[in-house]
């Protein structure tokens, strides 16, 4: 059995990834389907998008044509920019998870001004957030459950509240593992959110953890199927309708709106344009991914950049060797302080989530795993 994708740097155990009989991963296969589509094809897709927006404009009672969930990142800016350029009026909606990097915070706060849009920011109680961070770390080895849940739930709640049934995310859900083909026209759905974003955990699972009460977590749930249906809710992905080019889009956003990348480099990856809305996404959260599955954000970024021809596979492997294993001291200390936990406790709990398929112990009792550069 091959252990790594023959084209990018993904290991076979990467989350939701499939390696086919030729040793090529599902993410590379999905990219292969998209890369050669011509302008004529994308023009048709654009027309399709405009049609959906027009159709929903007719049925909406609200003051907006669609809702765009935004974190203030490069993609958020681009989505808002693009929908406005088509002549539609979006409402920007943010789930505020309380862990913004300074540049990310500035970007977020600038959106309403720079893009001339109304912006609705939902900011949960900090005390509840800290408790959720801690509880989720113990339950699933990921402090950011609240974030994954929040960024999916708040747009749906806003759609109901503002009577704007159409909401639009950016890149196709789980594009990272090549979960859907462009022809699937995959839409927001509860199954994906419950399985992946929320890992099967519901708000009830948090009751009495870290003294969380029912009222603390009450809003962390999606509406019933019937409510969803009766209100004609529809969540689409812009990535199904335009040719997504991260670097091109980011540069455009820098030019037009002075969008800021991270001034300081990250401890665990070389890219500075991703995940500014939550410092731990590229830090402690991502370190936990490495603990669990043996790879990290640098593998994600390198795999994407190899596909887009921004680096060679060899260069990607060098990056993975440099970054994937790094324990992000600075970021981890911030989180430990935030939730009041010792590093020892953190390590002890983290180790319980290691996948047996990836990790084993050497004769000295140290964790070991296979590495791409030895293959």
């Amino acid at each position: 059995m091959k252990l790594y994708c023959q084209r990018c740097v993904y290991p076979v155990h990467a989350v939701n990834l499939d390696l086919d009989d030729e040793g090529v991963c599902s993410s590379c296969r999905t990219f292969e389907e998209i890369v050669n589509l011509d302008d004529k094809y994308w023009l048709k897709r654009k027309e399709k998008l405009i049609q959906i927006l027009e159709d929903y404009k007719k049925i909406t009672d609200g003051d907006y044509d669609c809702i765009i969930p935004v974190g203030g990142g490069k993609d958020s800016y681009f989505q808002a920019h693009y929908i406005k350029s088509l002549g539609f009026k979006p409402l920007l909606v943010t789930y505020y998870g309380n862990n913004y990097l300074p540049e990310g915070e500035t970007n977020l706060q600038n959106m309403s001004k720079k893009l001339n849009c109304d912006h609705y920011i939902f900011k949960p109680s900090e005390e509840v957030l800290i408790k959720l961070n801690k509880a989720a770390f113990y339950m699933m080895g990921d402090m950011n459950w609240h974030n994954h849940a929040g960024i999916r739930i708040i747009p749906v709640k806003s759609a109901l509240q503002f009577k704007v049934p159409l909401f639009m995310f950016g890149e196709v859900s789980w594009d990272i593992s090549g979960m859907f083909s462009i022809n699937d026209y995959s839409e927001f759905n509860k199954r994906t959110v419950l399985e992946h974003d929320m890992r099967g955990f519901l708000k009830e699972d948090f009751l009495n953890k870290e003294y969380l009460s029912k009222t603390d977590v009450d809003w962390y749930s999606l509406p019933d199927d019937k409510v969803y249906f009766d209100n004609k809710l529809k969540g689409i992905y812009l990535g199904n309708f335009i040719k997504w080019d991260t670097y091109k889009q980011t540069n455009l956003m820098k030019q037009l709106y002075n969008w800021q990348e991270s001034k300081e480099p990250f401890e665990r990856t070389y890219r500075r344009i991703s995940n500014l809305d939550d410092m731990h996404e590229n830090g402690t959260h991502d370190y936990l991914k490495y603990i669990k599955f043996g790879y990290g954000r640098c593998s994600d970024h390198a795999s994407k950049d190899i596909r887009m021809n921004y680096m060679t596979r060899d260069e990607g492997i060098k990056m993975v060797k440099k970054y994937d294993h790094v324990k992000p001291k600075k970021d981890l200390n911030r989180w430990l302080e935030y939730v009041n936990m010792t590093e020892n406790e953190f390590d002890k709990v983290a180790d319980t989530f290691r996948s047996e398929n990836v990790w084993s112990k050497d004769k000295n009792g140290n964790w070991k795993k296979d590495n791409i550069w030895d293959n």
Partner: protein
Amino acid sequence: MITKKNRLIVVVFFKNGNVVQSKLFKQHKVVGDPYVIIDRLSAWNADEVIYLNIRPELSNLNRQDKKIKYQNDFDKIIEFVGKKAFMPLTVGGGIKSLHDVEKYFEMGADKISINSEITNNPKLIIESSKIYGSQSIVASIDIKMDDDNQYSAYINNGKTKIISQLSDYIKQIEDLGAGELLINNIDRDGMGNGYDLDLLKLIQKVSKLPIIFAGGVGNFNHFLQGIENNLNSVAAGNIFHYTENSYYEAIKFLHEQNCNTRPPVINFY
């Protein structure tokens, strides 16, 4: 005259313990874990679900960070699903012995689907249909069109071609005692370009057994085309993974088109 109900059947493909969507039997995209989907399908009152392990030889991904920890074998998944499923459940993939058949029935399967062993071990069909009744043994046939425009059956995940003519193969299956055919079309798998209606007609001509037909559904109209061609049990895998309330929307569409389906039900969930 009593007309048979039209059934809308969901095929759930498994590989490495994940639910996948499949294309041409070669490419697979992981869409999710084995557990949440059964709750969703139950909430929509799905008529029937078929769980197929498409690569039984591969080991499963191990995950400790989900509410329901990933189980490292297909049997544990079926044990869980068997308890959860509100609808008839068919299980297939890697079934090699009477022991396997018995095991899945005990776990709550209502029918067992057998593919490669039709050729490798035909006695398995004879014996299991004798013990459990023909109606509970489904013969799964994967079919592909060859270069000379002839349909052939394949086993072993579409890798090994059956030499005998398709019509002979199907007759042989009838003689062995299987009670239902699950037809999947390799060329249409994951293509979304509709059922191969020529193939459907050919099978209907050859066999009187009930047919579950899959392969090619890209929109709900394709189900309707099957029903209009006297197919009672329309089936698909991938299409149910893409949109919200997909099964409900599909059966609602068919019901509104005057198909003889159960009325659509949407639950509070």
